[in-house]
Structures are given as structure tokens and as C-alpha cells.
């Protein structure tokens, strides 16, 4: 009964949006008075390193329609490049970090390139390799694997400030008006990084460092402004763990979650955080499980998937907080990825082929709400 109601609500929302705009082009320049709504989701496929086969797929969560190879189709056959790492929608633009190609593409909502941003650090001829994005106020922030965090001005579409952080930074996130960067040190096995850099998001000055467990990679903030950090460990004797950083004093609390080896995290609506736990058995088979974490009680609330759907080989976790849809990308690294979409009730909503290798993120594109940036 509840599911039917949800479906109806979603369909009603869809009809509302569809009648006023094409699939991913909101408003057609006008600004209708509608609440912030998801108008579609892009699924970014990381691709195979060295194969220049990164691409993305448009997914309509209302109609379940899929359109593959959006970048090539919107740009006269041009390819996205080698190893796409992250994608966010911000205002009327999409930002795509193509790691090994050393380029950030800024496109319109249809995926047509507006700007190609290549960034160099002073004293180096090589292009920096973009990794992950986050947004705050009018800015987009990006990490570069060479040890930098950059601030992108969304009007001029240039990197206006570049800060030196730790080795091989991965995710970047705002919590309590501070910008946190996870310094993974991933290229320095077995001596992984053990810090987060804390930056002033306005000046991009590095203010301090926070000590965390080995190999911090994934960051998420909750509704109260706390920062959640997954350190992946050394894939050997140091296991992965979930930590909470309080931005007021940068104190770190390590959570003991029994039987859970956290590997991915995504923010849900309200107090919800979604977690993927994955570990290996003796034969290197992956055992995965999916949980909802309550940020009020700081404990596991329950399982994320309740209808018995088996989702194996998780590769990414993303969430659409407006529609309360959870996207779990899976990969065998050889064939096209599979995306499992789970609804608010833990039921499988849809599963589909992502049209490329290694689906690394699902990026909801929204319209309405506050004035577009």
C-alpha cells in the first residue's frame, strides 16, 4: 500500500516535470515556481584504465528509460576520455572529472561541452588528474590526485585557487563551513596517508590536519554538520573503518560496527546514511551487505535491502535524496556494469545495464527550488 502511494507520488511528480520540460533540460530558460525536483539521473561509467572508454548514461527514474553514450551523442562522437572518476550537477551545469585524461569537462545538462578545464601546478608541465568534486555556495571544489585541492569559479569556469594538500587526495566535503580533503596516500603502499586536510573554503588556505585511520577515501556530511570518514585500511592487517569528525573541534570518533567493513557511504534524507560493507572470504570472493546508519543514534538502523535482492560486487553507492532512491553500481571489471536502484522501502525499484564498465557514480540532476546558479 505504501509502495503504491509512493509510486503514485513519483508519477505525479514526473508528470508535473515532464509537462514543463524535456528530459534533462529544465525550465527552458524560464523559472517556473516548482520545488526542487529530480529531473533525471546520469550514470557515470569509469571505464577500463587505458581504454578511453569512460561514458555516461541518462536514466529517467520515472519512466525507467535509458539513453546510452550521452557524451558522444551530445558532442558529435567525441569521447569522454580515460577513467572518469566523478560527476556532479550544479546549477545548470554538469562537471565531470576524467582522471587519466587530466581534464574536467563542464557541460550543459544535455552533456554538451561548455568548457574543458586542464589544470597545471606551478613548476610542472603535466596536467593534474581530477578525482572528486563537492560544492558549496557558488563554488565547485575538486581534488587532484597529485596532491591538490582546487576551487572552481562557476561563472568563469576556471580553477581560481589551488591548495597543496596531502598525497593522493580522494573525496572532498564541506562540514561546518570547513573544507575537508581525504589524503589517501594510495600511491604509497604500504605507507598510506593518515590525515584529512582542513581548508578554508573561501581562501583555500590549509588550516590544519586531522589524524584518522589509514587510507581515508570516502567522506560524507550529515544533517547536523558532522563529517563521516571511511578509511579503507591497508587491505592487509588494518581493516577499513568508519569515523566521525566533529568540525567544531576536529575531534575524531571511531565507530565500532560489529561485522561491518565499511567501503562506501552515501547520504540519505534526514538522519539516514547508507553504507556498503564488503569483505573477502579466503578464496577472494566478495561478500557484500548494505545498511542504513542513523546519524542521530550513531548506530546501524537496519538493512538497506529488505526484499531479498542479492546485489553482488558493489562498485559504487549513490543516493537521490529527493526521490529517496539508492543507486548501487556493481562491476565485474570486465563487462558492462549493473545498476541496482533501491527505493525508500528497501525494495528493488529497477536494475539495469549501465552501458559501460565500472559504474562509479549516479548523479541526480535537479531543477526548481532555489534560483539556478
Amino acid at each position, binding site marked *: 500500500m505504501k509502495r503504491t502511494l509512493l509510486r503514485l507520488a513519483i508519477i505525479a511528480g514526473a508528470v508535473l516535470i515532464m509537462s514543463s520540460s524535456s528530459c534533462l533540460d529544465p525550465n527552458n530558460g524560464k523559472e517556473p515556481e516548482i520545488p526542487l525536483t529530480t529531473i533525471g539521473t546520469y550514470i557515470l561509467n569509469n571505464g577500463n584504465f587505458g*581504454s578511453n572508454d569512460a561514458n555516461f548514461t541518462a536514466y529517467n527514474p520515472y519512466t525507467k528509460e535509458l539513453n546510452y553514450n550521452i557524451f558522444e551523442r551530445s558532442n*558529435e562522437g567525441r569521447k569522454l576520455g580515460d577513467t572518469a572518476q566523478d560527476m556532479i550537477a550544479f546549477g545548470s551545469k554538469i562537471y565531470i572529472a576524467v582522471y587519466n585524461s587530466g581534464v574536467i569537462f563542464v557541460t550543459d545538462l544535455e552533456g554538451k561541452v561548455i568548457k574543458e578545464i586542464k589544470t597545471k601546478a606551478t613548476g610542472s608541465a603535466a596536467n593534474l588528474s581530477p578525482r572528486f568534486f563537492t560544492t558549496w555556495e557558488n563554488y565547485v571544489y575538486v581534488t587532484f590526485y597529485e596532491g591538490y585541492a582546487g576551487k572552481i569559479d562557476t561563472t568563469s569556469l576556471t580553477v581560481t585557487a589551488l591548495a597543496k594538500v596531502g598525497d593522493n587526495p580522494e573525496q572532498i566535503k564541506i562540514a561546518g563551513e570547513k573544507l575537508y580533503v581525504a589524503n589517501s596516500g594510495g600511491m604509497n603502499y*604500504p605507507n598510506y596517508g593518515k590525515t584529512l586536510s582542513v581548508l578554508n573554503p573561501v581562501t583555500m588556505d590549509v588550516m590544519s590536519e586531522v589524524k584518522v585511520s589509514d587510507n581515508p577515501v570516502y567522506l560524507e556530511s550529515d544533517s547536523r554538520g558532522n563529517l563521516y570518514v571511511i578509511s579503507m585500511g591497508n587491505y592487509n592487517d588494518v581493516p577499513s573503518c568508519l569515523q566521525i569528525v566533529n568540525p567544531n573541534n576536529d575531534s575524531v570518533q571511531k565507530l565500532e560496527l560489529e561485522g561491518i567493513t565499511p567501503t562506501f557511504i552515501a547520504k540519505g534524507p534526514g538522519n539516514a546514511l547508507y553504507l556498503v560493507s564488503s569483505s573477502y572470504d579466503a578464496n577472494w570472493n*566478495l561478500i557484500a551487505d548494505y545498511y542504513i546508519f542513523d546519524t542521530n543514534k550513531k548506530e546501524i538502523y537496519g538493512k538497506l535491502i529488505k526484499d531479498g535482492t542479492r546485489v553482488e560486487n558493489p562498485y559504487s553507492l549513490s543516493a537521490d535524496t529527493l526521490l529517496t532512491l539508492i543507486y548501487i553500481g556493481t562491476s565485474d571489471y*570486465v563487462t558492462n556494469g549493473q545498476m541496482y536502484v533501491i527505493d525508500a522501502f528497501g525494495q528493488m525499484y529497477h536494475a539495469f545495464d549501465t552501458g559501460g564498465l565500472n559504474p562509479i557514480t549516479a548523479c541526480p540532476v535537479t531543477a526548481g527550488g532555489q534560483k539556478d546558479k
Partner: protein
Amino acid sequence: MQYSFWAFFKAVALFAVALSMLPATLFAQNKKRDTVVVRHLEESRITSVAKPSPTLQSAPVQVMDRTAIERLGVQELHEAVKNLAGVNIRDYGGIGGIKTVSIRSLGAQHTAVSYDGIAVFDIQSGQVDIGRFSLDNVEMITLSIGQSDEIFKSARMFASAGTLNITSSVPVFEECGTNVIARMKVGSFGTYNPSLLLEQRLGSRWSIGANADWVTSKGDYPFIIDNGRELEHLLRKNSDVNTLRAEINLWGSIGASGKFSLKASGLSGERGLPGSVVLYNQDAFERLWDKNGFVQASYNTALGEKWDLKSVLKYNYAWSKYYDESQRYPLGFVEDLYTQQEYYCSIATRFKPAEGVEVTFAQDLFYNTLDASIPECPFPERINSLTTLAGKYQGSSVTIVASLTNTYITEKVQKGDPAPDRNNLSPALSISWKPFKATNLRIRASYKMGYRAPTFNDLYYLRVGNTNLRPERADQYNLGLTWSDTFGKEESGWLSATLDGYYNSVEDKIVARPTLFIWKMMNIGKVQIAGADLSVTSRVRFGSDHSITLSTNASYQYAVDISDPESKTWRHQIPYTPRISGAANLAWNNPWVNLSYIISFVGEKYSLPLNVERNLIKGYAEHTISAYRDFNLRRVSFRLQGEIINFTNKMYDIIQYYPMPGRNFRLTLKIKI
């Protein structure tokens, strides 16, 4: 306990070495040298190397001798091998690009490479880069698929699914006891390759030779990348090569039937690794330095009427340094050093109890080590013991060859656990039958089971390695027809044809399986291969000094993944394996300018296991023409040779995003005194 075990092995190895040297002094009797009688239908040449006839073999054997190499005008080993049937060459492009040989879709690690009968091996990767061999002083290339009819050889040459044998020239002296050959090759993209060879007769029984060659190339060839509407014209950057090779040889006769040879070889090189083409990013800073040296000695002798003995000793040292710079690395660069060593001895005996019957026994022992500077290198060491018992009956209409090879491997590491000891028995059987007296048609059938041991990278590479790996097993079945005959007036024409159908299966294929964060080597693959190879060679002589030779081959390979029926790649063609491929060459020898034309064709293939358009690599045909002329000035002979390689300027990849050079030129001047 473990140490005494190793000491025992070392003692056995030393004993074998001593034993192999012993007969030199004991058995110095006058016995005529045994040679297999081969009907030489092709023009004869003064050479000390016996050339096997492909159509008489009970399993597919292809031979390209010096005459054929010169006739085709090929200058590099991989260019020659491309003209053989059933072979895929993986070529990363340019002079410095690694080139490996895979036979009938089995993978390069199932191909053993030997240089003058002695195995060349890389314990780290299990595959040999044939780009490192110069073709200048090669007398003959032999590619055997499955078991060859030559059973008097080291056990190592029995153990692989296929072997590529490179036989270097043995000096032939005219009245003056000195040979001097100087060559200068100049090619496109800033390529220069001077070389010098000196040979000296030392009395009636000994001779010595030395040769050196230097290759330097900028290698910055142009290529085109198709990226949507725009065709990007780019230059291959960081593709330079600088390699110096030198070799000293000593040949001698000891007693009546003893033959001794000693070869010391060294190579030192540096090259840029251009890497795969990355869209929007032209940065390439990877470099590789190689130093390789080996000394090998072999001694063959007859031991009385019915026994022969062959012994081999080799020491090989290979060092490489990999360098890359990027701010992604904590120090801004990375430098990895790898050192491999091999100590090898082999002893083989042959017993001929009756006419046409041979029984051989071979025992090989080799010891390999690897030191690497990468973190957590366990410094693995391996002892291999290979033992082969083989028999052959060769009658006028039937040849039967059978062999049984046992491989025993034991390893030791300084950190962690070594892989468990492994023992494998591989049998092989082949039959060739000539059913009719009136024609030279022969039917052949063969079976061989081959193993390839996991390499040190497979077992011990940082995080990726898996010591639980089993050896990869390849079963090969072959059924074929061969025919050759002369035709025309005074046997002016000659035609030879072979057609083979085969079925191979690979089990426990060792593949890197990516897990969530770490890649791990696993025995998960299963491949089924069905294919056919056809080759036809014909030569017609006309006039007193003209001949035209046409040689063609075509291959079909249905090589599919059958690891898991649930997988999206079930029955998909395995990566880098074209369904169809072939080569044809036409050569006209004449008194003016000898000409040759070579086409090699490779059909479409896939870069990854999933056969979808995104992973498709287009097929291509490469055309090369070559011309040469010999002339003499006084007592000095000259040869001027020119080639246009890929003259249609076809842009193609063998490995996805490793573009191959377009049209390029090469000019060679050879001076022989």
C-alpha cells in the same frame, strides 16, 4: 632441513655439469656425423644447419631459412614471424614496443623461445620480447606447434605448447680465413642501426666470431586518433630507443665427432615507453633500462655407434629499471629495479637401436631468482627439473613420435609462504602417414598436453600475486594434410601445401581478476579454441636466373571464453585474437633487382573479453615492398636494400590505443669483405 635440500639440488646440478663435460675426453672416436636425410627440394646453400622439411613433419613445423629471409627482405624477427601460419604477434608499436608471439590463441606464455637450441626465458612475465633479437645473423627460424619431430634436444623444448627457435649463422669461410661484414641501416623517424661482424678461422678445427650492433631511434612517428568529428594528428612521444648489443662466439671440433660452441652475449638499452594513447593527455614520462648478459656453452658428441650426447650450460643475468615521474607518486617519481638470474644445465642422450628408430632422454635443471626493489618483494627462487623420454620411428611412409615430459618445480621465498611444489606430466604423440606411394600426400595427427607454470609475477607480485595458483594447462589436437611436389619441365616448379585443423583447450587459465580494491591472479579461465591453418608455397624458375616464389598462409581461430555460462562473456572471442588472419608474399629473384611484396592481414578483434563495439579493434592489411641488389667491387661484395613498410600508410592498432607506425622507409647497405 630446507637448506640441505637446496644444497642437494645444487650438488646434483654440479654433477650433471661435470658429467656433461666428461665425454669430451673419453669418447674421441671416429664416427660419421649423423644427419637426418631431408629431401632438399629448395635450392641448396652452403650451410651447416640442417633444415627440416615442413611437409614431412608429424606436427606443424614452419621454417624460414636465410634464403627465405633475404628473399622477403625482412629485417626484424617479428617481421619474419608474421609470415608464419597460426601465429599472433602482439606488438605495442615502434622499435621499442614489446613484441610477443602467441601460437594458436594459447597466449605468449605458452611459446618457448630458444636461441641456438637453448631456452630464452623471463621468469617474471613468462614471455619473451622477440624485438630484442637482431635478424642480421640469423640462419633459420623454426616455429613448431605442438611436438616437433626433432627429439634430440633439451627437455625444456618439449615442455611448451609451441617453440620458436632462432638459429644463428655458423661461419662459412672461403679461402681467406676472415669474414668481415659491416652494415648500416637507416630508417624513418630518426632510426640508425650500424652493425659489424668479424669472424676468424683459428686453425682447422676452431673459429671465432664477434658481432655488435647499435640501434638508435627517435621513434616519434605520426599517428591519427579518431575522436568523433575531429581526426587528431599527433606524434608518438617518448618512444626513443637506444640499444647496444654485442656477441662473441667460439666454435670448435673436438675429437672426431665432438662439436663445441660458446656464446657470450650482452645487451644494454634504454627506451621511452610512450604508453597507451590517452585522450586529452599527451604526458608520457615512463622509461625502461635493460641490461642483459648471458653465456652459453653446448657440446655435442657421438658416444659410440648408437649413442649421441648433447649438453648445455647457461648463465643468464637480466636487469631492468623502470622509471616514471608524476606528482601522483609521493616522491614525484618512481623507480623500480628488477634483477633476474638463471643457471641452466641440460643433458640429452640419443640411442639409435635400429635404422629409423631413435630413443632420447633429456634432463634439464634450472634455477631462477628474482630481486625487485618494489615493496614486500619476497625474493623468490625456483628450481625446475624437467625430464623427458621420447621415441621416434621414421619409416618411408610412417613417422611416429611420442614423448613424456615431467616438470617438477620447487620454490623458496624470504618472506611469506612459497608456492607449493608442483609436478606435472605432459605426454605428446604425433603420427605422419603417407598413404599412397604415388603422391607425396601425407596425413598427420598429433596430441600434446602442455603446462605453463605461473610466473613470479603471477605468484608474488605485490598484492596481485597468488601463491595458490596451479599451472595453466593447454591441450592441443591437430589433424592435417601436407603435400609437396615438383612440376614442370626439368622440375622447374615446386609446390608445397599444408592444411591443419586443430582443437585446443586451455584450463585453469591464469588471469588477473580485479576485486574491489586489489587485483588478484586466479586460475579461473577456460578457453576453447578451434581453428585451421592453411599454407601454400610455390616457386617457379624460369630462364637461367629468374625465379618467382609465392607463399601464402591463412588462419581461422574460433577462440572463446567458456569459463562461466552465466557470464556476459560466455562464448565471446578472447581478447586480441582475430578470427581470421593471413599473410602472402611474392618474391621475384632476377639478375637486376630482387623484389618482394608482403601483405599481412589481421581481421577484427576485441581489446577486452566483452565482444561489444566499444572494444572492437578494426582489422587491417599492411603492405610492404622490398628491393635489393648485390654487386661486387674487386673482392668486396655489396648489397643495397630498401624497403617501404606499410606503404599504403594504413593507420592501425594491434594493441588498442598503441598506434602502429604508418608508411616508413628503411635503407640498408651491407659490405662483405
